[in-house]
């Protein structure tokens, strides 16, 4: 392309943490995912696996299990508390000490009236789910040894509990243990080592599946307490099990990174009698599969290698579509990097700290594709450790580089920065009381205002100047949505502010009048990125389903180009891309150009060029290069896609027309993972 000078940044050492637990809510099609650092993420499976919400973690607050009760999300961990999350304010609502030592598992009954937890001290505790919280009801018979896993029979009258070396079946009404199933220790390994029953699954026909640390998946008859079948899957642990909703398939995740499927199949096609047969093996992970969910059309797995894999079951799809492709989610669907375009600074956000870097400089010139020599190297200016136990949930850097703000669930901190000659940072004292926490932070373009997304989709406007900062106003939407804002952007002229929330609503506020200007017509998919054009003040939105809209703020309607785009439809190759667009910017030199990027590509949309239809070659850069100057214009279309940068975390256009591209190669992430379990590979 050769239009931009590119800063290729690889010093962002972002390291996602391992996935620990998952829970799928089939009713709302939301997947809740807990990571080892205690953060919880909610993915909307109806909207292309878009990461809707992120609840930051907390030090010493690890999560062992998650469970949905209706639309409410509960977690429990080794700290011994049950936590319910406030999904509207993206924070824990309350934590309740269970008084049973570390909690290994939490599970709700199918009716949604109770949750049961398994504790280190050998008790299974039942809690009643009330409107305002959970209340302890009673203990089941206390056992010797910890309760590792629980599974509720679909009728709600029985609970199977996986323990050390055994499985117990409890009658919920009486609280007595009625079955005791002994699990063998590993055959080859050390006999003295106890077998941990990592997961149990109780099916409606009283079949119990168990997976254990000896590498077995065992099928038991829950009526008689007898072993039906043993499947030795691996030499290592089988850590996760999940059953499909119709109970025709069970999947098991092993430490070798494989997922093994068991299906309930009639051995003779004419007969009705069925049995469980081991069928397919999927290998999409390099490390332990710690969490696994079978969602009917796909198997969702996650583990030590930090990626979330959605492996579709192809027999459930009639034809090829977006959902029938294998998906891997590596990076969060939001920005962890903020950039000061004028001051050439990058702010990198980690859960525990912030890093401020100054970009390197080069005055060299070269042909397109050349690597220019650096005059000054990139420089780490600042390492800012967060205060308190809570992890950072969002951060912002003003474009002049003079202000820095970050927020945790409990507090917001604002800093004054000086980066000219001697670097200094001063915390701004006495922030307004209303500013307790923020879901998103954003500075206005000339750094005179700080906008903080607060509860119920409202935005706090704080005015900044050298001496003090002052609360100005709260912008509230008229819709009354209670969902959090996940995107916020201001116009360059300082007149407009656009916000998007998890209800897919996009609001535009007039900052001069401090009132709601308009609401963009609702679209079913959540916006994943948006930006306001510096000259025309058109709002460009890209949604999770890859649709692009351009909305004229002044005229309060979609622009002509946007209508044309919707009329003609986007190219299939564009629509079937893997990851959502995470950022939109504009080229101030060429007002026709919109710059977007996702994880695998960045794209320049040139509005002056014709739109591609389904027959045109979409990725045409190679063809264009081979054509002569005269032929080239006839082959041009609006989407110019560049894939030379991979694993993109961020892409920004600086004021001097150079691009900053922040890459985080997946290889680098993999190399920092702990070593996987040893496996014998053929011919090694």
């Amino acid at each position: 392309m050769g239009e931009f000078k590119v800063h290729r940044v690889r010093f962002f050492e972002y390291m996602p943490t391992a996935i620990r637990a998952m829970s799928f809510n089939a009713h709302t099609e939301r997947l809740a995912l807990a990571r080892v650092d205690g953060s919880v993420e909610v993915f909307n499976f109806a909207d292309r696996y878009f990461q809707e919400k992120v609840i930051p973690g907390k030090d010493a607050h690890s999560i062992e299990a998650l469970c949905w009760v209706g639309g409410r999300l509960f977690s429990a961990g080794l700290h011994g508390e049950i936590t319910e999350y406030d999904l509207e304010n993206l924070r824990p609502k309350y934590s309740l000490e269970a008084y049973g030592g570390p909690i290994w598992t939490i599970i709700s009954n199918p009716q949604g009236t109770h949750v049961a937890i398994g504790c280190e001290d050998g008790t299974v505790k039942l809690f009643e789910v009330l409107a305002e919280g959970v209340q302890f009801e009673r203990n089941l018979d206390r056992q010797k040894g910890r309760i590792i896993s629980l599974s509720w029979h679909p009728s709600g009258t029985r609970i199977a509990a996986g323990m050390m070396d055994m499985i117990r079946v409890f009658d919920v009404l009486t609280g007595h243990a009625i079955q005791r199933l002994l699990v063998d220790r590993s055959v080859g390994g050390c006999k003295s080592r106890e077998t941990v029953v990592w997961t149990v699954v109780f099916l409606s026909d009283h079949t119990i599946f168990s997976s254990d640390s000896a590498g077995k998946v065992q099928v038991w008859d829950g009526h008689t307490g007898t072993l039906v079948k043993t499947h030795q899957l691996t030499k290592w642990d089988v850590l996760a099990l999940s059953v499909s909703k119709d109970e025709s398939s069970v999947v098991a995740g092993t430490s070798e990174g494989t997922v093994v499927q068991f299906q309930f199949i009639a051995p003779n096609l004419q007969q009705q009698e069925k049995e469980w047969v081991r069928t397919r093996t999927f290998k999409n992970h390099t490390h332990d599969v710690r969490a696994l969910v079978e969602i009917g059309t796909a198997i969702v797995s996650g583990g030590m290698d930090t990626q979330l894999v959605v492996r579709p079951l192809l027999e459930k799809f009639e034809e090829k579509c977006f959902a029938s492709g294998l998906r891997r989610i590596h990076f969060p669907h939001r920005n962890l990097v903020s950039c000061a375009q004028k001051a050439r600074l990058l702010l990198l956000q980690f859960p525990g700290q912030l890093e401020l870097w100054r970009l390197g400089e080069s005055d060299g010139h070269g042909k397109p594709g050349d690597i220019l020599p650096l005059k000054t190297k990139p420089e780490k200016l600042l390492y800012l450790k967060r205060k308190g136990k809570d992890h950072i949930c969002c951060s912002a850097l003003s474009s002049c580089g003079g202000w820095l703000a970050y927020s945790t669930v409990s507090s917001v901190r604002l800093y004054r920065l000086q980066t000219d000659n001697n670097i200094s940072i001063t915390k701004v004292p006495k922030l307004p009381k209303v500013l307790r926490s923020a879901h998103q932070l954003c500075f206005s373009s000339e750094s005179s205002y700080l906008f903080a997304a607060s509860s119920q989709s409202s935005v706090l406007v704080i005015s900044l100047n050298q001496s003090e900062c002052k609360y100005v106003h709260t912008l509230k939407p008229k819709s009354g949505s209670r969902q959090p804002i996940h995107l916020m952007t201001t116009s360059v002229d300082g007149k407009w502010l656009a916000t998007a929330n998890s209800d897919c609503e996009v609001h535009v506020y007039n900052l001069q009048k401090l009132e709601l200007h308009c609401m963009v017509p609702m679209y079913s998919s959540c916006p994943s990125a948006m930006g306001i054009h510096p000259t025309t003040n058109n709002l460009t939105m890209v949604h999770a389903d890859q649709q692009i809209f351009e909305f004229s703020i002044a005229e309060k309607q979609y622009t002509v180009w946007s209508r044309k785009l919707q009329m003609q439809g986007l190219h299939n190759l564009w629509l079937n891309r893997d990851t959502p667009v995470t950022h939109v910017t504009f080229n101030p030199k060429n007002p026709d150009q919109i710059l977007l990027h996702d994880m695998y590509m960045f794209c320049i949309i040139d509005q002056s060029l014709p739109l591609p239809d389904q027959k045109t070659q979409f990725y045409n850069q190679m063809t264009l290069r081979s054509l002569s100057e005269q032929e080239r214009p006839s082959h041009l279309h609006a989407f110019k896609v560049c894939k030379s940068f991979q694993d993109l975390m961020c892409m920004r256009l600086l004021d001097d027309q150079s691009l900053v591209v922040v890459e985080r190669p997946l290889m680098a992430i993999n190399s920092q993972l702990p070593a996987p379990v040893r496996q014998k590979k053929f011919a090694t």
Partner: protein
Amino acid sequence: MVEHTGIRVVHRGGSKINFREPVITSDSRFLLCGSGESVKVYSTSTEECVHDLQGHTDLVTGVVLNPSNHLQAYSCSADGTVRLWDFTDGILIKTFIIRYHIFSIHVSEKHVGVLFVVVPMANEKGSELFQLVAVHLPRSGDPEVEVGELSAVLCDVSPNPGAVSFGTGGEYIAAAKGLQLEVFFFKKQKSYRFSLKSGMNKGINNSFTCISCHPKEDCIATGHADGKIRLWRNFNQKKEYTYSTLHWHHNAVNTLRFTPEGTNLLSGGIESVLVQWRYTQENQKDFLPRLGAAITHIAVSPDGSLFCTSHADNKITIILSSVKVSAIIQGLVKDDCVRTDLMIDPRSKALVLNGKPGHLQFYSLHRDKQLYNLDIVQQEYIHEQGVDQFQVVKAAFDTHGDWLATVEERRQKSSELEINLKLWSYDEQTQSFVLNTTVTAPHEDQITAMCFSPSPETTLLVTTSLDGHFKAWLLADHSDTEESASWSCDFVGGYHLLKPGCCCFSADGSLLAFGFQEVVTVWSPTSWELLTTLSQPPGAVRDLCFGRLSCSKYLLGTSTKNQLCCWNLLTCSLEWNTPMDVSLLQADPFSENMAAFCSQSGSTDLFVFKPSEPRPLFSKKALCTGKVERAIFAPRDQMLESSEEYSQWLNRSQLYFLTQHMDLMTFSTKTEEDRLLASSKQLMVDDSVAITPFYLLLGRHKQQQQEKQELLTNPLAERTPLPQGSIAIKELLDTPAHVLPSASFLCSMFVRSLLVSSSSRSKLEDNVCTP
């Protein structure tokens, strides 16, 4: 088809027994396998060939047991017939004429009276597409029945019989080809197709190689070219089918078989390891390694007590169900190329050629059995590709079979050629060859020809090499010392630095001819004097042969430029020559006849002639496709009394040749076939005894003796019934106890019945006395 009717080219002896899957009979006593144009019945316990079921006129392409009578078997052949045999007695019961080239045969217990055969789609030999058709056998008493009714079941199937299998109780049939598996349900008359992704771009070859259906459950096991085994279930649905994958083989799975109860799955491939998978406990497997060569087929006996595996080196291994090898039936080992000539061991009359790597095999053509292997290289053979190892390239016997000379060579990349000449003497005590002399580097370059002098006075060996020399080796007799006799070089000769290509002794050993490129030189081996040179350019001499018996004054030579020349050695002039591209010239050691194989436009013609008259005695056009490089005249054990002129040349010896595809073929005359047919019907053996040569030798002898005795002593005497069969004892044993008279009453009658009458006793004694 034949110019001279009555002489056919047949597979007889040394044919492939691993071409198709063998069959074990339901009592596990016999093993049936197609071998060339016949079906061989082997005893599973003694490895001995019990019957040779002959009748087909082309390659047998499949053998199956008759599902409605376990004492009968069907065989199909490329000649377009299916034959029903009684294999215990070796009798042909019926012939069904189908008139298509049949590639394989399948039967199922559920489909009584129906055979499933694979035939080409269009009735052409070269057709690439095959279909599976159902053959409804007509009910008719005639021994030869024409079958009219064929109905297609599956189109586009693989001709490989391992790629078609019947499912549980014959409800469905599964066939695999390329990347597609097709299952046809007979009841619903509906087929389901499942295809795999090619995976070629990832370097995986997913294509199906073999298939086997579980006998009790609806599960299909398929083997794949990348070494995986897939177990398919739920295949009566278009979408919801599922499979699990097993992987042990690192190369293509050649064959798969479920045991009759379905508890185990057996698989084999190039690894030469039989793998036994436990059904539904697939991570428990048993291995039977070191089976010698790649496994091509697996068969299981109907009661599951025996397995047998066919191997790429023409071997069938019989394995007990406890995964132990119990017997090995070894056919003629044919590698992809035979480096040595075909030879006849003068002592055992066995065919000698390359066998296992580094070995010479001795194969009895009359008994169609490998006699033994002689380890020539005497080094461990490493089963790995790309390793250069010693190979036996030349071998020669002297006239009496006392000496054997072998040449082995190894050419490593970018290094010198290593050659060893070994001389072996026959040891009467051990009945085998013992190494006498090893000559390392006998020549500086490859040895092109080697022969022993046929003269009875001297033991002389001549070798010629590409280094431009020929060497004569003599057995030096160290009778004065303790050492035994050993060989040493006696003479080194050459001719104008030309490279000798072939050598030949005259029948009495008085003349020795060398072909030095275009020049034929004739030497006297006693004085090493160059007697004369003969040359008939253009073209280098390829083969030289002295005439025999009445034609011993002639020397025949073939050249690379399509010349067959005949020189008269008395006048040293050319007697006659003809333009012919003779690829091989072979002299019959028992007559004046010569056989010349001429390659012409992709196929080979044969001419048999006498050197004295240039008119051929016998000619056959288009013998086989490709060049014939190796042939041999083997002596007959029984002379033929054929009077027809065209077949007289086959009276004393039999001509065997190896085709390009390494099939050992021979010629058979009408009289010979009649004799074989007559002999096969006579043989009637008692079922209860396993047939061994020992039994045939002694058992028949005993029977004949007995009959003779009977005839002599009392021709009309009836055989006394055995005591168990007498009426008195039957009455005693069969009548209920409460209706029997008292024991004292019965006793005398019982004892009397056990007594042997005087006449029959003498007979019994006689029998005992005869040795």
